[in-house]
Structures are given as C-alpha cells and as structure tokens.
C-alpha cells in the first residue's frame, strides 16, 4: 500500500529510522503534506521505526492536532477559551455548525470547510476569535460569520473560474 505515498513523505519516514524521539515530529510533517495522516503512512512508519501500528494510532488519537481523514479546503477553528466563552464563542460555534450543516470535527460535503473547536488561541483580548485557514478574525459576531463564509466561498469560486 505504501506505493501511494509521495517521495517526500517516504524520504521523511526513512530519515527518521531509529530516532527515538522522532515519532511525533514525523507525524506532524506527514500531516503538513497531506492535511491528515494517511493509513499508508502509518504502515510505513511502523515498519521503518520498528514499532506496532497500534502505538502510532494511540498517539494519533491522543493528540487533538492529528487527523485520520482528509480535511476541507479551509479549516475553521472556533476558539472556546474562557474569554471567548464569556463573549459568546459557543453561540458562534453553534451558528457555524448550523449554517454549514456539520458538527465539530466534520467536513462539509463539498470539501470547502472543516469545523474545529480549539481550547484557546491566546488572543483573549479580541474574543470571540475564529481562525479560517491561517487567518485570525477577532471580535466575531454572527453577521461577521456570514460575511466571512461568503468571502471564502467567492474566493474559491474565482479560483475555479
């Protein structure tokens, strides 16, 4: 199955052979390539690092950063930190979930958006905060969310044309 992995990923995995603390950074690098950690990568890592796949899945499911399935084009992270909660972060998450028709952790059927909740982004002064892709948006309101979703959808539409 490892045939489906691209050469960069294969090289990264081979380079980590026998490095005792390499596993988590390696998985982070693999995720940086694919947006998630494909099962083919897990199999190859297990072989190269001489560990059981179950150990790798143990790590993948323990840390919230890792995904086992493909992500949407834009990942929307909604901050659920204390300050954001007090300023209405939960309503923002509920609204987004409703509007996109997906729950947290899921991806829209068109592959546009994935929805995530994060514990705290450390931007409490601008609460409530959401992150779309790598862009931070502070002092969010439900109106602002509508505008943002439209903005990203039209950005995508333009690119497709």
């Amino acid at each position, binding site marked *: 199955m490892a045939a489906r992995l691209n050469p960069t990923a294969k090289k990264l995995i081979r380079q980590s052979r026998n490095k005792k603390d390499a596993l988590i950074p390696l998985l982070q690098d693999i995720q940086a390539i694919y947006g998630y950690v494909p099962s083919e990568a897990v199999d190859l890592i297990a072989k190269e690092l001489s560990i059981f796949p179950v150990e790798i899945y143990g790590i993948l499911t323990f*840390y919230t950063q890792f995904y086992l399935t493909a992500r949407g084009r834009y990942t929307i992270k909604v901050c659920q930190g204390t*300050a954001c*909660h*007090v*300023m*209405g972060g939960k309503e923002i998450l509920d609204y987004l979930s409703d509007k996109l028709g997906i729950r947290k952790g899921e991806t829209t059927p068109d592959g546009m958006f994935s929805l995530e909740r*994060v514990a705290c982004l450390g931007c409490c002064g*601008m609460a409530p905060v959401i992150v779309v892709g790598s862009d931070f948006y502070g002092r969010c309101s439900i109106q602002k969310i509508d505008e943002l979703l439209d903005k990203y959808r039209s950005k995508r539409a333009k690119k497709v044309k």
Partner: protein
Amino acid sequence: MDIKILICMGTSGISAGAEEVARNFESELKQRKLAGKCRVIKTGDRGLFRDTLVDIITPELGRITYEYVKPGDVAGIVEKHLLEGKPVKELQAGEDYKQFFSGQNRIVLSNCGEIDPEDIDDYTAHNGYNALKKIFNMTPEDMIEEIKKSGLKGRGGAGFLTGLKWEFCRKARCPQGTDDVKYVICNADEGDPGAFMDRSILEGDPHSAIEGMIIAGYATGANEGYVYCRAEYPLAIKRLIRTISQARKKGFLGKSILGSSFSFDINIKQGAGAFVCGEETALIASIEGHRGIPMPRPPFPAQKGLWGKPTLINNVETLANVRHIILKGAQWFSSIGSEKSKGTKVFALAGKVKNTGLVEVPMGTTIRQLIYGPGGGMADKKAGFKGVQIGGPSGGCLSEELLDTPIDYESITGTGAIMGSGGMVVMDARTCMVDMARFFLDFTVTESCGKCVPCRVGLKRMLEVLEDITGGRGKEEHIDFLQEMGTNIKDTALCGLGNTAPNPVLTTLRYFSDEYQAHIKDRACTSHVCLGLLKFEVMKDKCVKCGICYKACPVGAVDWKKKEYAKINKDKCIQCKACINACPFMAIE
C-alpha cells in the same frame, strides 16, 4: 537613525491588520525620501489591544503613541508628524491607554512592544545577554543561592521555589553506569484557556526566555535544553527558531559559550494539542514521543526526568525573570511584591473589562486594584461586576466580596482558587456561574488523559449533573453530589489536572450558591445564558422598544416596528441568542 517607528505586530496585532499598516509606513517613507532617516521596528504585542498601536520617536517631539491606526491613516501621520512636526491629535493614545500602563511594574514584559524580537542586536542593546556574561564569574552554587534568596517562584501555576528546584537538579546524579547528562526544559505549553503571557513573551522578547534557559543550564549542569511550545502558537515557534539560530551565531549558544568551558544547545519541540502536556511528567512523555500521560511523582523530574535523566522544567515567565535577578540582584527582586510572594506576576486580563490585555503588577496587588486600575473597570457599567475567574480550568470563580484579596500564592489558594498561570477573566451580570462551572468541566473532561479513574469517570459524572442543572433538569440532591464528588476527586486524582479540575465547581458552589438554587428550584437562569432554561420571550416591563434585537437577528425571527414591543416568532427562531446578547436591557429571557 534618529527617528524610530514602533509597530506592534504580535498575533493579535497581525490579525487586526498591523502588517498592512507596516507596509504602508514603509512605502510612504520611501516615497517621501524619509526611509534613510527612519527605522521601522516591528515589535511584539505590548499587552494592550488597540488595533494597531504605533509609536513614533523623534528627537523634536519625543515619544508619541498612536492607537487604532488604520492602514489609511498612515499617509496622514507621515505627512503631519514627520514632515510638519505636528502630532496627529485625533489618533493619539487617550486616557485609557495611560491608565492601562500606570500602576504596572513591567519587568518580564519590559521589552515586549519595545524591541524587534527578530533582531538579536536590538535585544543586546537592551541589556540582553549581559546576565549570561555575568554568570561565568559566579559558581553554579552561588547562582542557585542567588535565585533562592530572590524568592522567585514558578510562574506556571504551582508556585514552587525556583531556586530549590534548580538545587535539586544540580545535586541529582544520573543512574550509575550511564552518561552524566541533564536537561533543561522550557515549558511553553500554555494550555490554560484565558492565559497568553507566555505567547506574548515568546513573540515579543524570545531571547529573554532563551537567556534564562542557558543560565539555568549553567546552574544545574545541563548541556541540552528543549523548548516545548504549543503548535497553536505558530508565530512564537517561528520566532523561537530564528532566536536560537541568531544566538548560536553570536556564540551565546553552542560549544564553549563566550569562550568558557560551558556548552549548551536548545531544541524546539512542538506540542500536538493536549492540555495535560503542560504537566511536567506528561510533557516529558510527549517529548519522548509517547502519549502525554502523567506519571506518579516521586520520582520528580529533577531526579529522573527526560530519558531517565535529571531534568529541570521551568515555565517561560519564570525563565524570563532570571536574567533580571542576575543583573540587578536578589535583594532588588525580593524588595518587590508581598511578604511571601516576591516579584511581579503577569496577568492576562480578559472578559467583560474595559481594557483587556497583559498586565504585570507586583505580587500583593489586590484584584480590585488590577481590575479598576489597569483594567479600567467594567466594559458595560450597567451590567455590573459579578465575579472574576482566576487560574483557568484549575482555578476558581471569586465573588465581589473577595475583590480585595491580595494577589499572591497564599491568599489566592486560601479562597479555593489557585494562581495558575495568571488568566483572569472578568464576568458581569450576563455570565452564568453554573454555566461557567459546566464550561470548565467540559474542558477538563475533554482534556483528561484517561489514566486514573477519579479524573476520567468522576469528572464526567460531575459534568452530566451540571448539564442537567443548566438544561432545566436539576434536582435538590445534585448540590451535595457535586460537593462530595469534587472533594473526592481533589484528594485522589493522580496529577495536577485532576487535583484541581473540581475547583471551578467547588468555588462557584461556595460563592454563587444562589445561582445554583435559582437553576434548580425556580428553573431560571438569571443571566439568560443556559439554553435549556430560556423561553425566548420579550419582557414588556424591561423592553424599551429600541429594535436592537430586530437588527441583531440573523434569521428575521424578531417582529418589531417603531414604538412597539419586539416579539419573537418562535417558528423562525433558531435559538442562537443573538437577540439576548444584543439587548442592552436584558429584556429577553
């Protein structure tokens, strides 16, 4: 260059559009042929959010601060301030800005917002690495003594004496027959929701933490260090990588530092999103490439830590204090603060307070002084102060009568909260305390590693009960259950996460019991937060017919005409609470 232009560009600044402001300054200066005379310095966040803060320092006018600078304002500022020599009055920082910085004693944050964090020369021009140069005239034992005398305590939460920790690690021996190796770890896994001082230090003054690590390495006899930083802080990681490579080039890191026999180098480890990894033993497991699951202590990491070797773990803010103590002396440091807690503490002030941001005050300052001094009081005067949450998910909610509690480790612990990493979230009448307790428990249940039963199962049961109460299914006996279960978990959980997780519930039960009673007996949430208890009806005695709710509703479910009471059409309502949050009179319940 005689003219300096400082632009605040931390994560918060950038998200508010500081990059465009900086670009405009650069192009405007070029166009007006001023580029040779001015230096544009992109600093970290200064601690106050005023999208965007710009300081201009000229020999004629001195230092003038502008706030809320938009990209479109730049041309005007350059024209008036730099060419005509007249400050732009409308944009000058006002009273709030002054109030925010008065009453603070900025030691750890002294460079944040003042220097270019990506330029090592700017740091050395501000006394940087001078403490490192000084240590080679001292023995490690003298240095440990100095840190002990200063009274510095760990700023990560537990408040253990830093000097003592260093001494334990210095004296610890490696297991027989193995190499004599020790490690220093900088804990930058700032997971407490509501705390962001470590991020600001790493973004605004990363060299200060690195210098602290090198000094700690010298004192404990370690030659290798790790910075364990959350992956959620991409800018901090980027700056750390740069900082370390710059320090290596200048000979502050690497083999035989500054010509001495001492060698020290630092690796960066990115966290992968697990709150429990802020706990020392879990952090070590994570660096070793395992699931971040805590181990029972003892043995403490200072004796048996990373790869089984003695390991010193200090928090970012603690390490950033070190260079100041070495430079100015233990006596100077211990003259600041209260009797038992020395120095300053950085608080992340957020929530319903007027000025939100990072505030550094001497230990012993009261909570009231902090909120009504730098904080500028409540954002919405009408809603009034209700409580303040200190210490994140491990801390507690304190009520108004505790506002005069001095901020030091002992006094805060006495209230049932803990100092934690210094998150401080202010809450007003629109915050439901039962919901707050549920919120924190929801967080700790999600983040529990699952190893020990009290934390894994006990917290879950407590959360279910709180969900019942906020959902309108509360029973009288729930209060006793929460009290008993909370106390038991505190006594029996394995690590700091579980030991402190019931604090938010226990403190709200103690200081806000009337709200629990209202939820259970009257089936009412007086703060209009808990969805299960809301009716989405307009109360005519409070409604002033202003129509704000009508404008706020995203689905057009509010019927309103001028001079008429608003009415909510329940068939259309999606219960998003936009109207409730928008209403200035709390007229919708």
